[in-house]
């Protein structure tokens, strides 16, 4: 089964076409029937602003990130420089009843612009991505740990951090009190 994400034809989706025209370096592809646009990291905020202000995408329905450390050879469209992390944001337009997905590549230790000014609803998701994966968001009002204790070290969702399974300890039966 061919991997759909390598298909780069000029897209039938008019929103994707508008984004590709407006943002230099953006590449639109189709992923199992959904539109995905790869945005260069520097143009992230500008592209999302275009989406919100001119394309009526009223809500950022999901923002997350993927640690692609174990997949350095994953298929990506031409013109997209691969990095370790992929920040993925799904947007929803209520008046137009459309969805679109933006993906941007971020290096380990790198930063991407926060979407908080455009969509305040990304405050907690960006903190979660920072907490669990270590990706920083420039311009976020309060980028601190969210889910883990404040003194936790490391970013567990990274592929080289915490193991997914800790060894099971069998405890002795307790003596009767």
């Amino acid at each position, binding site marked *: 089964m061919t991997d759909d994400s390598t298909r780069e034809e000029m897209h039938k989706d008019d929103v994707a076409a508008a984004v590709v025209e407006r943002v230099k370096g953006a590449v639109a592809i189709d992923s199992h029937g959904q539109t995905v646009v790869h945005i260069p990291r520097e143009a992230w905020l500008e592209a999302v602003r275009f989406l919100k202000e001119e394309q009526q995408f009223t809500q950022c329905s999901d923002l997350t990130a993927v640690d692609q450390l174990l997949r350095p050879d994953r298929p990506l469209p031409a013109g997209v420089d691969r990095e370790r992390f992929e920040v993925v944001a799904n947007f929803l337009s209520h008046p137009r009843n459309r969805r679109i997905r933006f993906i941007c590549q971020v290096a380990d230790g790198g930063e991407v612009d926060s979407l908080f000014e455009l969509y305040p609803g990304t405050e907690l998701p960006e903190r979660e991505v920072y907490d669990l994966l270590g990706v920083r968001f420039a311009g976020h009002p309060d980028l601190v740990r969210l*889910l*883990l*204790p404040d003194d*936790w070290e490391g970013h*567990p969702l990274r592929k080289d951090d*915490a*193991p*997914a*399974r*800790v060894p*099971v*300890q069998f*405890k002795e039966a*307790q003596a*009767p*009190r």
Partner: protein
Amino acid sequence: MGLEAINQSFLTTRLEDLVKWARRNSVWPATFGLACCAIEMMATGAAHYDLSRFGMEVFRASPRQADLMIVAGRVSQKMAPVLRQIYDQMVEPKWVISMGVCASTGGMFNNYAIVQGVDEVVPVDVYVPGCPPGPETLMHGILTLHELIRSGQILRRPGEGAGIQIDEPVSRPA
């Protein structure tokens, strides 16, 4: 100071029975519902599987007024100190039921985030298995606890956290 302070002998048997009867028939749980097991705990307290028939429908919000802590749900690393603090705030005699497999052993989540068994943080008297345990299972656990209280097996506490010193050996009731 309770039963622990008096010298137990055949003369005080009736008194002990009375105190144990009073204790086990009005165990008041502290609200410590964490996750899915909390829903089943609330269902056990509600009208269908009534906990009121055991004198336990009053879930006290304040740990000072509670006897029993039912740890219902998975305990995360961030929650463990809170759990210990609530346990310490409870007044003797107190008991702990570890409800569900996540509280007993970490359950299906043996990863970085979950304490692998709440008995790493507080001493547990009864473990109730299930994911989540149905109300009948929880009630069986509660009735087991009542039986433990009745038979006096958990009369004494280890020193840490309870502050009770036993200076001379006391014979256990048979």
